[in-house]
């Protein structure tokens, strides 16, 4: 057998085999919202659009991309035959999605700064980042888990879309219901002033971790996906 020293991460090939639609979707929405905030510049709508993109749209994209991250691979059976532990395969693919979202979120905030707009009403620097980070991780976990549970990407993406839409429509109920407020994905964006925000973010993060752990349990059953 050949020598196997000094781990190399095949980043070049990961990028070359990365599905371009997974970049096109976030990039096009980034562009769309960048134009919107520019058009509405000086009006409240500019701020509303900006926080909607960072705190709501980006987490949704992350969830949908996470649903497609593992199973939409033309060489999946070959990948499963490689000496890569399942946890690492899951982590590598989700990290790539996460990286795309992080770049989108940070560059969009930089762009807002350049055009003289700020998300400061959401709180300090940490609060502004948690406002998109927490729902992003939660929906990524949900999307990935349900895609693996259904052994197809579509159930995961649909579940993310349904959760996202139902919370968007019922945001007031979620924000003020005694139980619902802890599962409300956009509290950091729409109700940052509520004292339950930290508890909400803790619960969402915990659930996100539970989803990811469950996804790891499922990805070990590789034959389900072939």
């Amino acid at each position, binding site marked *: *057998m*050949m*020598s*196997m*020293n*000094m*781990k*190399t991460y*095949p980043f070049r*090939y990961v990028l*070359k*085999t990365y599905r371009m639609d997974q970049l096109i979707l976030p990039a096009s929405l980034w562009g769309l919202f960048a134009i919107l905030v520019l058009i509405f510049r000086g009006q409240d709508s500019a701020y509303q659009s900006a926080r909607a993109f960072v705190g709501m749209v980006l987490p949704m994209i992350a969830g949908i991309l996470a649903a497609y991250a593992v199973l939409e*691979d*033309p*060489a*999946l*059976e*070959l*990948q*499963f*035959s*490689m*000496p*890569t*532990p*399942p946890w690492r395969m899951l982590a590598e693919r989700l990290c790539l999605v996460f990286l795309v979202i992080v770049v989108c979120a940070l560059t969009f905030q930089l762009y807002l700064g350049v055009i003289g707009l700020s998300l400061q009403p959401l709180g300090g620097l940490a609060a502004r980042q948690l406002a998109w980070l927490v729902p992003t991780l939660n929906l990524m976990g949900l999307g990935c888990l349900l895609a693996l549970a259904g052994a197809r990407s579509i159930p995961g993406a649909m579940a993310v879309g349904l959760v996202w839409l139902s919370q968007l429509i019922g945001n007031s109920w979620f924000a003020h219901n005694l139980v619902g407020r802890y599962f409300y994905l956009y509290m950091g964006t729409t109700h940052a002033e509520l004292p339950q925000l930290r508890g909400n973010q803790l619960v969402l993060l915990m659930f996100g971790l539970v989803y990811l752990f469950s996804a790891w349990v499922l990805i*070990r*059953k*590789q*034959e389900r996906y*072939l």
Partner: protein
Amino acid sequence: MIEIRNLNKQYGSGAQAVKALNGIHLTINEGMFGLLGPNGAGKTTLMRILAGIAHPTAGNVLVAGYNLADEKARTDYKAMLGYLPQELGMYPDLSARQFVDYMAILKGMHIPGQRKRRVDDVLEMVGLSDVAERKIKGFSGGMKRRVGIAQALVNDPRVLIVDEPTAGLDPEERIRFRNILVDLAANRVVLLSTHIVEDIGQTCRNMAVLSKGRIIFTGSPRELTELAEGRVWTVTTQSPRKPNNGLTVVSMLHLAEGTQYRLVGASAEEYDGALSTQPGLEDGYVWLMKSTGYESAV
């Protein structure tokens, strides 16, 4: 090298349960081993279990000392495995060289110079050196299969599993592919799964026949051929009706004096001019399936 004991695999449960593998016992040593069986026999399930991708419902699989029931052992074992799946998915925008290089990295070959030499070697071995820089999406089915075997070989595996490698290839590509496999079998286990009898006969010293999840024969291709001794007949007739009295027509030849049928069955003496003839491997396989009650699968 490979020890399979009482291997069972069931999909689903209750009334919808399907037994894909049922009490498989098999020992496979170095060299080329053929697994023959009709479509749906359970070959791909067995190959996936041996590749560490699928998990048995019951039973044990030991490969080179690795117990595949253990996840850590399975991961370690995959570093010495070469696997060519039946449905070979690839990344069409990578060139042949890039694809094999990528798989080499995934297999843990992290020394660039050594990896490059090995990638060159395997591409040469499968006759793709001249087109190594071309994107896979422009390749024919046969060329893609050769890229597949190159990636399977790149880590110099001790166990090479190839599942239906010649399906869909033209005769020339099939011969070429078989020759590559024979060359590789000198110092490793090469496990060839196929439903094409000829592929086994031309390449394997030992083989097994799998049908409906059970091993119904183990031995050499010669032993399988001998099973049909005295059971193979030729009948030449001008009648438009095929001889079908408990006999299986293996082949037909249109001659000036009528149609010559090659038949496998207990007796063809009721047909005028029936001649007993020397069996081939395909006859042995057909007789095996008939005599063990699996004829419908032939």
